[in-house]
């Protein structure tokens, strides 16, 4: 009974509806399981360091996964176009969360990142990432529809303002360069795919480079981190400690690793063993073979996202997935890059694997959004340009364009 309605909706939008991407889901489950196993394996060491019971970390991680499944279940049922309506509420909530973190949050190293909500710690930056990608998808697809993608006033200026806000809120107040990097990567990737002229992107890149340099040189611990990054063995006992211990963990893993229960670095040597440094712990336990498999899983996951982008039913959906892909991939690479000494330490989690509730919940929520999109394929993948033309024609009849999704959304909610 729903099939006929769906077909109507699909036909009207030049889309075909089909089974969602279960392979994507399977990859996410695999990655989550790996994370849970590693957290479980290092629980004895972690709990001893923090003086909590051995089940503490696994319990919290299971709670986070449960919350993640709930988040996924909800977002995977929300019709894609409905997110357009959530842009503003999400931005307001993200803004409110940022203010709350500044006012009531815990101050660590001069940064405000966390807020305690009913026994759970909440990281505002994760919400900001999610809100940012929802807003950008809508913003960019609208600009494309309007043909204003290269317009300075209409496109570039708002983007620069958004960048400035991120710079102040995330980089400065929350002092979270890692998350800033991920947000910038999300913006850059989406804007690039949206077709913003490369010159403009280069210009924005220049601004970011200058801003980053200023930020690094203005904070002493960042200067230290950067100096450490340039020469990690410079001071393994103090500023370079985590970087050195991470390299030791990775390097001592060898080809096959020390084994699941055998690693030692999680016993107080490598800081943040369950969070930021979990990749190094994984590498120590499972060696090059394990790491290759893990990178393969991530790459397969990214490839699935890329495929969904390529056959996305419309530019809004496409931008959403581009944002998710940019988010997941840059966060993965920034995290791993720091662990293998190719990037400075940033303090961000490895998607799916790291222990940490907020990150996990928003990541699974984003996957839910993608999962919903993966149910649709554009009929005219081969000539996406034509589809874009059609979208542009639709602008003249925006009511019809939007209305077209309503039956679909009713049927799936």
């Amino acid at each position, binding site marked *: 009974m729903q099939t006929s309605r769906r077909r109507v909706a699909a036909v009207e939008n030049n889309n075909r509806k089909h089974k969602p991407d279960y392979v994507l889901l399977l990859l996410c489950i695999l990655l989550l399981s790996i994370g849970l196993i590693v957290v479980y394996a290092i629980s004895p060491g972690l709990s001893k360091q923090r003086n909590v019971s051995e089940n503490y970390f696994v319990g919290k991680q299971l709670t986070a996964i449960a919350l993640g499944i709930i988040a996924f279940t909800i977002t995977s049922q929300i019709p894609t176009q409905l997110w357009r309506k959530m842009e503003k509420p999400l931005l307001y909530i993200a803004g409110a969360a940022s203010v709350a973190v500044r006012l009531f949050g815990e101050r660590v190293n001069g940064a405000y990142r966390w807020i305690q909500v009913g026994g759970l710690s909440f990281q505002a930056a994760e919400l900001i990432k999610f809100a940012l990608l929802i807003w950008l998808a809508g913003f960019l697809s609208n600009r494309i529809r309007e043909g204003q993608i290269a317009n300075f006033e209409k496109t570039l200026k708002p983007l620069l303002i958004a960048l400035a806000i991120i710079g102040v809120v995330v980089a400065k107040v929350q002092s979270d360069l890692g998350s800033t990097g991920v947000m910038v990567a999300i913006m850059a990737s989406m804007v690039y*795919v949206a077709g913003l002229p490369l010159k403009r992107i280069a210009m924005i890149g220049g601004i970011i480079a200058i801003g980053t340099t200023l930020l690094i040189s203005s904070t002493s611990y960042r200067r230290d981190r950067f100096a450490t990054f340039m020469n990690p063995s410079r001071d393994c006992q103090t500023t370079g400690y985590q970087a050195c211990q991470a390299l030791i963990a*990775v390097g001592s893993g060898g080809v096959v690793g020390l084994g699941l229960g055998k690693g*030692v670095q999680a016993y107080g*040597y490598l800081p943040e063993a369950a969070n930021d440094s979990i990749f190094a712990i994984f590498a120590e336990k499972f060696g090059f073979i394990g*790491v290759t498999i893990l990178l393969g899983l991530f*790459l397969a996951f990214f490839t699935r996202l890329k495929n969904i982008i390529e056959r996305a039913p419309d530019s809004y959906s496409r931008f959403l997935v581009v944002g998710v892909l940019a988010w997941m991939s840059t966060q993965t690479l920034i995290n791993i890059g720091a662990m293998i000494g190719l990037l400075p330490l940033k303090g961000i989690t490895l998607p799916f694997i790291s222990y940490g509730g907020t990150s996990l919940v928003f990541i699974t929520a984003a996957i839910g959004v993608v999962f919903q999109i993966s149910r649709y394929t554009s009929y005219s993948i081969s000539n*996406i340009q034509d589809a874009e033309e059609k979208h542009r024609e639709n602008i003249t009849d925006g009511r019809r364009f939007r209305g077209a999704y309503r039956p679909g959304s009713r049927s799936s909610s």
Partner: protein
Amino acid sequence: MTPNNSGDTSKSNPILRIQIWYALLIFVVIIFGTRLFYLQIIQHEYYSKAARAGQLKQYEIPSERGVIEAYDGSSIVPLVLNEKRYTLFADPKYIKDPRKVADEVARIIGGDANTYEAKMKLDTRYSILAKKIEKKQKEALDKLDSKGIGTREEPTRIYPQGDLAAQLLGFVDNEGVGKYGLEQALNKQLQGQPGQLRAITDAQGVPLVANKDNIVQSPKSGDRIRLTIDLAMQRQVEDILKSGLDAAKSKSGSVIVMDPKTGAVKAMANYPTYNPSEFYKVEDGNTFNNASVSSPLEVGSIMKPLTAAAALDQGVVGTNTTYFDPSRYKIGDATVTNIEEDGGAGTRSVADILELSLNTGATWLLMQMGGGEVNQKARVAWHEYMVNHFQFGKQTGIEQGYESEGTIPDPIKGFGLNIQYANTAFGQGMTATPIQMASALSAVINGGTYYRPHLVDRATSSDSKESIKKPEVVSRSVVSSKVSGEMITLMEGVVKKNYALYGLDKPDGSYSIGGKTGTAEITKQGGGYYEDKFNGTFMGFVGGDSPEYVIIVRVNEPGIKGYAGAKAAAPIFSSITRMLISSFNVTPRN
């Protein structure tokens, strides 16, 4: 869309752009993979070593030091025990609020909060705040929820008997090494076997169990040592020594009480003494020395009984032999004379030599060993007795640190040997320690067996194996048993004649008490002797049918007038003799 729409189609094609973007992603992942290959496979050895360097800890687990106990009458009481004390240290890196933590520490262990605060601000990872804090304080500190301070267990020796037998015991220094006395001599045995730990540990140094690289060897506690010392006797001997020294206006002195039938030391007292639990407060390092074994002296006339014993044992004189004593002998350029009260020249016996303490008599005894004169034959014969019978000039092997050998002049090499040897016949020009004298006298009066002097009665190892120390015979032929008996009688004679001078009651024959005084000249640094400084010595025994205790008394430079041996040392001997008879069941003669 854009003005350059048609010309720039490929560049702005979103699918193409995402493919370029994806290609870039793959490229980065490949770089990461290459880097991982480099780190995990090419550099694996290097990082494995680095990991081991950080994770593998190797250290000793200290073993518990053996306790020392002794007899107190028939019961056994502890002399030295161990107690856990703690060193409190800070890791300033982890102390957020030094003021607050310092106040808390001062509240619990006392002391100055400002000092602690200053130590908590030092640029170090290990700053010692206090030492030897007690267990209660440690537990209170553990309850503080302060990051950055910790305690380390430091085993500490405690002394339930205070400073009793301090020099005999010695002490254990801050590194856990025994110093002086028994602690030094038996350091290895007391120390036990430290355990070894070679283990992969967590960052705090706690070994991770179930790791094949771990080697754990439990420590073996040191032996429990029981002394031959009787503490009841030791206490009284120390008291008698102290009051005797006060009476003689002497600053220092020693007493040994030995069982002549075994060589076991029953009491060994020195003055001044110190408190071993506060050894670090002692300013003069000499105070640590057990003078009874470490500080040799020219023994003076207490040598004469041994000279007599040697001559009797060689058969060159008999107890009935008499001779004409000219009251002076010229030997080379030097002259041997006697003290003023010698009664001048006359016919003397061996008994007279001892009773009157004749230097010329001792010289005459030496002459008999050489066939009538002091010559090489006499010197060699007397040297043989001093070194190989009485065991002078070498360590006795008693369980004490820094034992001295004393010096006996060579009988053949050197100048002026004849006068030098004449001097040794009455205890000058040679040195011996009180323990050497006690052991030699014991051999002379016990029938002729030299037992190694010892302080350890038995040792019990950590696995409860008890080894009782048997008296060790060094020589069975010091003198013949006939001479031994003769010597007892001769020395009893000395006491019979001089008891009043020594402060003893007139011997009633129920106990055997013998002895000999010595007033020894003290060598100046750079040669010669002081004219007004002497050491007073006394060597004697008390018993019934046979001697039960040998007693050696030494009083350094007494400040009172008169012969040091008789005036300063003899009263101490007398007091000890009385004390032994009244408190320690000396069996009377049948």
